């Protein structure tokens, strides 16, 4: 809770004096490792936004897009002009691995820069580019017995540290 309060205070401080754009949006983002849908709204204070997202990932052992990713992000604009907004943001999420070998839920923490480029005159549409770092790692135990033999080992799941995505945002009031 202290960390969340600290992050909120930090964002408030950083965003002081920066002209706001409308951050309310629904979005779709694609990266090499996941596809996600997001819902973002300004909250607490005009210049801080929060986003919840859900999507599919392919980072576990079978490399199929059948894992679930979900989480929350908060961010604030640090550079704004008529068409462009650069935000800094932080996130906390969960990665639900889905494969035949292990079933684990891995917390994922991220910090990234989110760029919005508004398209068209109405400022309802935008191109979204996110780039940052994320961390999520969890160990799991595997055991097997057959006849007179028992074997066990520890495996480790780790999300890719680079978070890069490109997407589309639809803005609403």
């Amino acid at each position, binding site marked *: 809770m202290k960390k969340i309060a600290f992050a909120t205070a930090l964002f408030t401080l950083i965003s002081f004096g920066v002209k706001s754009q409308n951050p309310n949006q629904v979005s779709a983002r694609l990266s090499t490792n996941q596809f996600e849908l997001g819902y973002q709204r300004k909250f607490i204070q005009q210049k801080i936004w929060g986003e919840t997202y859900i999507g599919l990932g392919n980072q576990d*052992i*079978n*490399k199929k897009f059948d894992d679930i990713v979900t989480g929350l992000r908060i961010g604030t604009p640090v550079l704004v002009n008529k068409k462009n907004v650069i935000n800094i943001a932080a996130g*906390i999420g*969960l990665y639900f691995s889905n494969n*035949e*070998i292990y079933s684990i*839920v*891995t*917390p*994922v*923490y991220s910090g990234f820069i989110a760029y919005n480029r508004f398209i068209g005159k109405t400022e309802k549409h935008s191109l979204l580019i996110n780039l940052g770092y994320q*961390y*999520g*790692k*969890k*160990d*799991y*135990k*595997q*055991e*097997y*017995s*057959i*006849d*007179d*033999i*028992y*074997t*066990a*080992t*520890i*495996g*480790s*799941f780790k999300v890719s540290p680079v978070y890069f995505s490109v997407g589309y945002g639809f803005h609403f009031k």
Partner: protein
Amino acid sequence: MVGFSSCEKEELSFTEGDIQIEIETGEHWLHDFPLLLGITKKNPPQFAIWLEDTKGNYLSTVFATYKIATEGWQSNNGNRRKEALPYWCHQRGVVYEDGLLLPTKENPLADGITGATPVVNKTLQLRLKSFNEPVVIKAEFNHSIDFNEFFPEDAKVGDANYSGGDMGSGQPAIVYAGTIYPETKDMELQIIGHSSPDGSNGNINTDFEKLTTSKTIVGKIKVTKK
């Protein structure tokens, strides 16, 4: 309830008589694998560890990496990669629907002995309920596209150094072995040779002259009886 802790650590709990197998990575554990536009990915090797009796009879696999154990190759265009770990396949001797000795997507190895290829050292716990006779521990390791001048990418099918073509093995798989006796405290597995480059047989070749980086995929394999 899911805790937001990424630092939870699973550990193996050994009891007296258990056998610990520790694989220490070598200089060439990670190998560049091309993705696109010159971008490469550091890939760890495929490997399998299994037990035999002292007469060479296969007993059981204790670990195999996911791709070979489940036919989980990416972009292999139907190539089953029989050159990957041919000695293990032949010792195991299970013939699948297509006549090959490799597990399939439909009939993979058991989940409990199939795992992700580690990028760092790997430890296995082994417990033999009746450990009265010596047991041979064997392990086989191989990288894809690990070509060198003796096992080149352009070798032709039928050549002695053909290893599966442009996305094939390159240098053949390396095989380690060691015998553990009931009274053994610790030991190291030793390289006993390399496998068939094209995976066409289960022979062991002891000519190491033509191997370069493949000899240092593994640092050492330590076996300790608790």
